[in-house]
Each structure stands twice: as C-alpha cells, then as structure tokens.
C-alpha cells in the first residue's frame, strides 16, 4: 500500500531526473559501475553471484555435446548422475539418490513442471523437446524449496528455451545413426521488434540398446510440434504464449504377475504417450527495480502402458514479484496454486491404485529478502515458503544463504535449507501384487504373492541441507567452482511387512504377504563437486568435474526393511569424473571429446565404467553445419543401471551423423 502510493506520487512529479534513463548518460564511468543491477532470484542471475551450487549448460555446451535427449545433456553438469537403463529410460539423481523415478529432483521446462505426482519423478521419454530451441539448462544442486516448493529436495533443473527473437529464420536439422536411427527437426520463426514467433516440428526414431538375449524391446519413436509467440511493449511488458503437442511409442519390457500359473511373466510392449501443454506468461520490469511475472499453464498427459494407463490434467498458476527497498533489500515474493486431477486405469489385475481417481493440489506463497549487509561485499538472503498440499497438509520451507565477494574474482557462499518431498501416488495409493514363489502345502504347491500397498499415513520425506561453496577465477580464463554439502535426511521411504493372509478369490487359492510403505530410514549424505573451466586460448577449451557423494543411512526401529539402506546407499556412484576438451579448428571445423568415469553401484551389481564421446563438426558455409558424433566409444557396450525385469541392458557404442542448416538471420 505504502509502496503503491509512493509510486503514484512519484510518477506524478514532472519528469523526476532519476526516472529518466537518459540521465545515466551524464554519469561518469565509475558511477555507472556503482549502479546496482536489478534481478529476480527465480530468473537467471549471474551464476557467479549466487549463493547456490548452480551450473549452467549453455547452448554452445549443448551443441558441442552432440547429445540428442534431455537426460543425456544433464551429464554435462557436475553432481548429476545420469544412468541410461535402456534406450528410453534413464535414472537421474543429483547428489545421490539416482533412481528411475528420479525422486527428490524437480525439472521445469520454461517454468512448467514435468515432475509427475504419479511416481514422484520424471518420465523422460515423454519430454523430448527441440534441442536447438534450448537457450540454457540451469542445474541447481541441493535443496531449492524456498523458491521452487516441495520436491525440490536434491536439485532443481530449469530448462529454458530461447526467446522467439533469437530464432528468426528457418532451421532444418536431419540426422541418422546406429541408435538414433532417424531424426528430423524443422523450425521457422519471424517477427519484428514488438512481436515475434516460431513454430517447430520434430520426430525421432531410436533403436534398441544392446541385449544379450536379442530381445530388442526398447526401440521407440517420438514426434512433436510446438509454437511460441512473444510480444514486447515499450512499457517493459513482455507477454509469451507457447504450446506443444507430442506423441510417442516407448518400447519396454515389464513383468506381469498373474494369479494363475506361471505367476510371473515378462511382457514386451510399448507405452503410448500423448502430451499437450499450453503456457501463458506476462512479465513486466520497471526501471525502478520493480517487476512481476504472472504465469499460467495447462499440461495434459495420457500414458497407455502394457500394464497400466494414466490420464492427467495439470493446471498451474504462479505469480512472482520483486522490488528493491532502500537500496539494501531486494525483496521477492510470490505465490501459486496447482490442481492436477488424474485417473488410473488398471490393465492387469495385479497393478491397481486405490482410489483410481485422485486430484493432487498444491497452494503456497513465499517471501525472500536479499539484504546487502556490506556494500558490494556481503549479501544475506532469508526466505521461507509455506506450501499446502491436499494429501499431507502444510509444509514450511525456510532457507538462509550468505554470499561474500572479498574481491571480484572470489565468491564464497554458504546456506542452510529445509526441503521436503511429498508422497507420490505410489506411496499412498498403490495396490501391486507380485508373484514370489510356490510354497508346498498339504494341498499341493500354493503360490505366494507380495502385495505392496500404499500408506495414507506416509509422511513427506524431509531434508535439512548445509552447503558451502567457493568460485574463483584462478587466471584470466581459468574458472573454478567448488561446492560441498552435508544433508540430514529424515523419514525416507522404506517397506514394512504387514499381515499374511490367504485369498481364494481370484482363484486359485494363494497366500498374500502384505508390504506397505513407511518412513523408516534416516541418515545423512555428504559430498562435494569440483568443476574447473579453462579457455586456454581461443582454440582450446577444457571443462571438467569431479563429484563425490557418500550416503550414510540407518533403518529406524519402526521398520524391518533390510534392503532399503543398501538400496539408497548403493544405487548412486561415490565417484564421478568428467573431462571435456573442445577445439576450434581451422576452416570452420571443431572437435569436442568428452571422457567420463562412473564408479560402481554395489546395490545394483553394476561395475564401474569409463567411456568417451566425440563430435566433429564442420561448417563449409556459415549457414550449414555437418557433424558426426560418437557416444560410448571405449567399449562395444557397458551397463549403467539395473533393468527390471530381466538381464542387464548394454548401453551400446553409437554413431550419429547429420546436418543443421539455418537460414541467414537465424540464430541456431
């Protein structure tokens, strides 16, 4: 109220000098250098000056990597574990806790969450956006609940596409290879200063990975089309409207339990995925350092798998505003609400949800103040979010961060943050029956099944994270980023044994051993990441990272799950290292090579592995790029994660070649 009154009075003054941008031209260079830049925490900030372990994958990094899918791109960031399970499934974790269902990791594409409450994770093959449209990927390691809300526990990944003003003209990219068998993408954009647009269509057909038994069940295809329009007005208003539709068939092998013999059998089939989303955003920045952003989106998914089907509609609205008070306080506040009704349809009698229809709801608000404690040197950021979800009630997500820049090339930061992961539908509502064995009885062998049931009392998992980091410029173009963390985990999910019953219906007579989800595991995780980035000279660039994580958990007395601790501790690599060398060669050619090492996953019986990728590109003319890339080159195949059911899937050596043509005026 006070501020809005002030603003009205202020603008009523006859052209006050400070409101006139031309006034800046009368300042000296030193004075210009003293003026503070406005920015919003939920918008891109200069990474250097952020009290968060953040790594930005730029469009140059993306292009040079040769990666053709989102999870493969995430390998570029330190602290992220990407394990390919088969051709169309990945386990992604940040600072441990890698899992096919990527729990505790939040991923957003242009502010739209692709985290599904069905299993609390990302279903990666359904989100195959146009790689050439990505402007950058911000990978935040560690909890980010104060801004991003529940489920931003171990990390937040923000995929941000380019504004349409950067994609005028035409783009055609065509490629083919041994794994990505065929890939076509076309884009066209245009516009003028006030209005700009683009539209794209793409399709990819990917083959299976290596299967020792020749069961090539994991081939898949996906196709999509989308459009975006941006309007900018001189008052500082920007309006964006964007939408996409997609369709894919994702091959997979699932195990189906049946009450009649044989009890358990593998089934190969495809998950038919449909997706559609529409997003609108209005943002306004005022020269006074005030601004806001209002965003709303719809996201619809329909998945028909060999063993289940789910249909989901998500509606989300989000508001964020920022202002600067007394030059020392940068205040950011906002709120949002989401409603996500879903329907589960059983396909086999042994996999069901109760209830089948469920609506996930979230509503919350946050306030954050970045206080400059010492001019240009020390900033303290305090914030809290209160978020209410329809299943488990309200959660408080506070954080405190401090940033110290003793000199322009040195930044120290530290933080304490609390985050929670809310239960997925699996943990609350699952009814899954899995064949275990036949047990001999007086009436002959009787099948024994394990029935996993969700638990309405399953509570949100909690994390209290302590982090510290240091960024420095060791030499003119040698940058080093170091971050370390200590996390306390409470109430992690595990199984508890329930009752044993005998059922006669459906026939035949069978024994059911009940198992349900409980919050039975607590403990800590510790680790650090070191990531140097060195531009030796205009020709050579070297980037690397080393990530260490050690998870140390214990089952609490209430739980009898003997596997949970080793599963959490042993499903993520302790050590990961990556080294990438990029060379700009004469005659518009370039060469990128990347080596990576991932240590073993004892819980999954996965050995450690080394492998390497390489990419050569040549631009005979400025509009055309020809490229050849090879992935996983050091061996015919290796395994990265366990596949259930059945034998391991070998992630195969692959080659991919193609071209990208951009019309003049178009920024690729």
């Amino acid at each position, binding site marked *: 109220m006070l501020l809005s009154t002030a603003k009205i009075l202020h603008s009523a003054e006859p052209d006050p000098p400070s409101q006139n941008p031309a006034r800046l031209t009368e300042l000296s*260079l030193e004075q210009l*250098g003293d003026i503070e830049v406005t*920015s919003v925490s939920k918008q891109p900030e200069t990474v250097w000056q952020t009290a968060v372990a953040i790594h930005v994958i730029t469009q140059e990094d993306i292009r040079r990597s040769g990666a053709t899918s989102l999870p493969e791109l995430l390998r570029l960031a330190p602290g992220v574990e990407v394990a390919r399970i088969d051709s169309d499934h990945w386990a992604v974790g940040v600072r441990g806790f890698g899992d096919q269902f990527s729990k505790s990791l939040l991923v957003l594409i242009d502010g739209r969450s692709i985290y599904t409450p069905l299993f609390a994770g990302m279903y990666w093959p359904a989100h195959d956006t146009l790689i050439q449209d990505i402007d950058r990927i911000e990978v935040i390691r560690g909890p980010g609940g104060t801004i991003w809300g529940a489920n931003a526990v171990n990390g937040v990944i923000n995929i941000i596409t380019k504004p349409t003003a950067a994609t005028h003209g035409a783009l055609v990219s065509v490629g083919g290879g041994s794994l990505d068998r065929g890939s076509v993408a076309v884009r066209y954009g245009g516009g003028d200063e006030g209005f700009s647009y683009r539209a794209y269509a793409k399709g990819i057909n990917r083959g299976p990975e290596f299967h020792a038994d020749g069961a090539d069940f994991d081939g898949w295809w996906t196709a999509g089309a989308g459009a975006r329009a941006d309007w900018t007005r001189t008052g500082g208003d920007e309006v964006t409207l964007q939408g996409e539709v997609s369709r894919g068939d994702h091959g997979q092998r699932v195990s189906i339990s049946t009450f009649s013999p044989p009890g358990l059998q593998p089934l190969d089939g495809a998950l038919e995925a449909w997706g559609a989303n529409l997003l609108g955003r209005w943002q306004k920045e005022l020269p006074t*350092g005030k601004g806001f952003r209002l965003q709303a989106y719809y996201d619809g998914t329909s998945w028909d798998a060999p063993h289940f089907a789910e249909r989901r509609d998500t509606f989300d609205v989000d508001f964020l505003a920022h202002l600067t008070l007394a*030059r020392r306080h940068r205040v950011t506040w906002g709120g949002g609400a989401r409603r996500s009704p879903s329907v589960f349809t059983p396909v086999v009698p042994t996999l069901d949800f109760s209830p089948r229809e469920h609506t996930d709801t979230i509503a919350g608000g946050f306030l954050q103040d970045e206080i400059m404690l010492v001019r240009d040197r020390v900033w303290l950021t305090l914030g809290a979010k209160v978020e209410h979800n329809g299943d488990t009630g309200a959660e408080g997500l506070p954080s405190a961060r401090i940033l110290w*820049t003793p000199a322009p090339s040195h930044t120290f930061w530290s933080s304490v943050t609390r985050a929670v992961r809310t239960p997925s539908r699996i943990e609350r509502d699952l009814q899954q029956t899995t064949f275990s064995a036949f047990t001999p009885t007086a009436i002959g062998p009787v099948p024994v099944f394990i029935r996993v049931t969700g638990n309405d009392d399953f509570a949100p998992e909690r994390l209290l994270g302590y982090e510290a980091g240091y960024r420095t410029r060791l030499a003119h173009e040698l940058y080093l980023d170091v971050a370390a963390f200590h996390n306390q985990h409470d109430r992690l999910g595990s199984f508890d044994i329930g009752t044993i019953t005998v059922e006669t219906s459906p026939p035949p007579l069978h024994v059911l051993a009940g198992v349900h989800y409980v919050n039975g595991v607590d403990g800590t995780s510790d680790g650090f990441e070191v990531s140097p980035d060195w531009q030796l000279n*205009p020709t050579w660039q070297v980037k690397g990272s080393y990530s260490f994580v050690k998870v140390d958990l214990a089952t609490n007395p209430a739980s009898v799950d003997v596997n949970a601790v080793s599963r959490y501790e042993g499903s993520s690599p302790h050590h990961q290292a990556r080294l990438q060398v990029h060379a700009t060669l004469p005659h518009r050619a370039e060469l990128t090579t990347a080596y990576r090492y991932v240590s073993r996953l004892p819980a999954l019986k996965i050995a450690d592995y080394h492998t390497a990728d390489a990419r050569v590109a040549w631009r005979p003319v400025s509009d055309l790029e020809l490229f050849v890339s090879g992935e996983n080159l050091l061996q015919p195949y290796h395994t990265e994660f366990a596949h259930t059911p059945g034998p391991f899937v070998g992630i195969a050596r692959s080659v991919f070649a193609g071209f990208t043509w951009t019309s003049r*005026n178009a920024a690729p």
Partner: protein
Amino acid sequence: MVLLTAAVVTLLASSGADALQARSEYELKAAYLYSFGRFVEWPAGDPRASGDFIICVLGSDPFGPALDATVSGVTLRGRKVVGRRLSTAAGAADCHILFISASEERQLETIVGSLAQAGVLTVSDIPRFVGRGGMIQFVVSGGRVRFEIDLRPARDANLTLSSELLRVAAAVRPDREQRQ
C-alpha cells in the same frame, strides 16, 4: 494518514534524489555504450565522420526500449547519436559502436574477423568475448555492470582507447605485440 504521508515523502526523498538507484542491466549497458563513445578516438579520415554517431545492435536485441531512450536527444562530439538494429553483420562497418548480442555467439569469430580493420568498437556480453577477438566485454559482478578490455583488436582497428577507460575497466588484456 499524516504518518503515511510523512513516510511517503521520506521514501520519495531518499529514492527520488538518488541517481544511483537500481537500474535494469540493459539500461546500464546502453548508458555504457554511449559513454564508450566519449572515451574512444576513431581514426582520422573516418568515412563516417560527417554523419551521425551510430550505435548498432547486432542480432536479438536485449535492450528493448533502453537504447533508444538513452540516445534520444544526446550528442557525441557534436554529432547526433543514433541507435540502429542489424540482423546481419553486413552493415556493421557503418557503425561506430557495435553491440553483438548473445544470439550471435556462434558466428562471433566470423563477425569480429570481418570487422577487424573496419574501425568499429565491438562490445558484447557474450562470455569470453574478450579473448575471442572482441574489444569490450560487459561483466556483471557483485550486482554491478563492469567491463573488460582487450587492447589488441582495438589497436588492429586503429581505435585509441583513453587512459580513463582503461583505468575504470575491471580487467585489461594487454596488447602483446607478437602473439604466437
């Protein structure tokens, strides 16, 4: 109400009188572009000498209205300052100052290479612009916009950068006469 009015007046007095209040990044960068014009000498015999002083933005324009607002009604050495937007590097040699947008990063070497002798002051916020043939690179540090200078391409283009500019720069990359 009296208290509220008093508070408002206090707030106005503290913020309105303060020319150094927070600005958007590109307002500041626009002001810098203009100021660079005051501290750089273009070679004598400049074919553009008789006309306007031209500040260009190549590629996707990050300034929005800030550049036009900055240059409207101002002069440099008696010349009218004009903002111009370019979608290709074709007309870039007509500019005194060329801001290269991040959208042009891929073509960066080609662009700066084609302008090496053209007497155009090249400015950008593309990471490592300085070192890739660019002359002045904006860096945002500590919530402030500063800049780094590479003297070699400036010398190659026969531009003279004043000592004042070099003094204020966050970093100056020296001009090594013989580079390998």
